[in-house]
């Protein structure tokens, strides 16, 4: 039985994180540039479109009746700009975190890289935890930071260049967490949990296919998801058709409630990380066929 200090030590975890970051710094910087760039481009396109409309509103009313907080302009205010930007930012965030997770084991995509990784004097648990910290926790931190940076950046630039700074206030997570917005909590939880699940899936994919992991996991995940949907549709049809005869054909309540979805995604994420750890722990220089 190995001593616990041989399985996990914070000093070695710190060294492993520093090593992973230091040796793959270029990749991390490219990732940061990628998400900041993607959000900036998206923000620029949204602002360009919204600016023309705001300008038109000012022109037609002489600027006197433009109040972005009035109920009359709420629809335009949220739906046409902030809500749309929020949704697109969220899509970029989810895609980015999945992409970052898919790169977690990319350094072991070659025999040389695998030897370097396996012979590094840290436990497999520490090396795994270092990757989890950098690519999963770090992926989220980077995505949220980029979101805040771009949203505030857009606001500051538009405030300086135009008189409509008030309209371009930073797009926050408001539409998701706004208590007054219908089903906001459900939407927020679903988005975050879906992102966490996708991260775990791509992290697992990276442990199986370190090379071109994103594409391979995307393909395998799509095929798996398609099969599951098909099975679910057929099962539901079977249940509705045969098991509950009568006019009140209903699915069991638990299938429709969001908590079931939350529990399922959390459970599946935990399963994915466990499988990834087992896979990584059993990694050898050459995979035996």
């Amino acid at each position, binding site marked *: 039985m190995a001593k616990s200090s041989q399985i996990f030590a914070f000093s070695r975890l710190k060294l492993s994180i520093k090593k992973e970051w230091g040796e793959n710094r270029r990749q991390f910087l490219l990732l940061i540039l990628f998400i900041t760039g993607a959000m900036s481009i998206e923000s620029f396109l949204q602002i360009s479109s919204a600016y023309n409309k705001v300008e038109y509103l000012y022109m037609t009313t002489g600027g006197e009746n433009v109040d972005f907080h009035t109920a009359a302009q709420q629809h335009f205010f949220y739906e046409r700009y902030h809500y749309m930007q929020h949704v697109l930012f969220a899509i970029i965030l989810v895609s980015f975190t999945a992409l970052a997770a898919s790169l977690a084991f990319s350094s072991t995509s070659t025999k040389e890289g695998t030897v*370097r990784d396996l*012979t590094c004097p840290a436990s497999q648990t520490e090396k795994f935890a270092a990757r989890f910290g950098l690519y999963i926790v770090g992926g989220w931190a980077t995505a949220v930071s980029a979101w805040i940076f771009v949203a505030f950046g857009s606001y500051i630039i538009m405030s300086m260049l135009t008189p409509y700074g008030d309209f371009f206030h930073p797009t926050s997570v408001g539409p998701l967490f706004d208590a007054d917005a219908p089903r906001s909590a459900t939407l927020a939880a679903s988005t975050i949990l879906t992102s966490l699940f996708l991260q775990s899936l791509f992290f697992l994919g990276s442990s199986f296919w370190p090379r071109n992991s994103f594409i391979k996991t995307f393909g395998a995940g799509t095929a798996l998801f398609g099969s599951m949907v098909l099975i679910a549709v057929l099962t539901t049809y079977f249940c509705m058709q045969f098991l509950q005869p009568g006019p009140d054909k209903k699915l069991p309540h638990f299938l429709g409630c969001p908590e079931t979805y939350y529990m399922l995604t959390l459970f599946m994420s935990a399963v994915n990380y466990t499988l990834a750890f087992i896979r990584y722990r059993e990694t050898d220089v050459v995979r035996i066929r």
Partner: protein
Amino acid sequence: MLTLENLSFGYHRGQSVVDSINLTLPPGGIYGLLGPNGAGKSTLLYLIAGALTPRAGKAVFNGTDTRRRLPSTLSDIFLVSEEFSLPPISLGEYVRLNAPFYPRFSHEALRANLEMFELTPELNLGHLSMGLKKKVFMSFALACNTSLLLMDEPTNGLDIPGKSAFRKFIAQAMTDDRTVIISTHQVRDIDRLIDHVIIMNGSQICLNRPVGEIQKHLKFLTTTDRETINSALCALPGIGGAAVMLPNTDGNDSEINLEVLFDFAMKHQSALNGIFNKAVTQTSNTF
């Protein structure tokens, strides 16, 4: 102390690259692991380093199965594999990131090793040729001061001065508690360096003897004398005469010609073992 206990491995089912190898290597020696291509030398080194999972048996280093990949074991073993990669960062940065994993790492030793290869510490690993990368990597490996140093084809890709410097720096770095295993098929590069010969063939070890014992029982010389060539256990023709291997009957040591020994081991494995076993029997009878 490194012990291989009934170690077996194969990349495919039903195929063995390493087959039931039993071996004990006491510390303080430079072991030359020789064998033809595909004999399983690199695989054996990966198994010793814990980078492969044996099909059966285990490699035990200082009382610990290396496959467990415990940090304490890994920090005392360094593998210079034939195929290796270095990150595209400066050498200083590489040392800063990797040296803390090795408790006995010596910056002075690194500087001295680099000097031996006529290199300076101000290098960018991303801009080096393969030969220079190898020199830097070997310098770093030796500076880690691990008890077990595994080197797979270390002289591949080195220029002539590099090979000479390699021999010098391995010899200088040897201590009583350090074990170096050098796997190669370029036997001439290490013939004056090693003090123990291990020859692998057909997934098994066919010779495992200290250099002193080989010299005691076998004699190596280069000759043009037809009679000597005909009576030799093995002869390899060359310019200036044939390199021959004979039973050592006069008791004088000669410098081992690994090429001839290797050639004989490949062709007459049982005869070679017979020479040593017979010698052992004779010695036992004397007592």
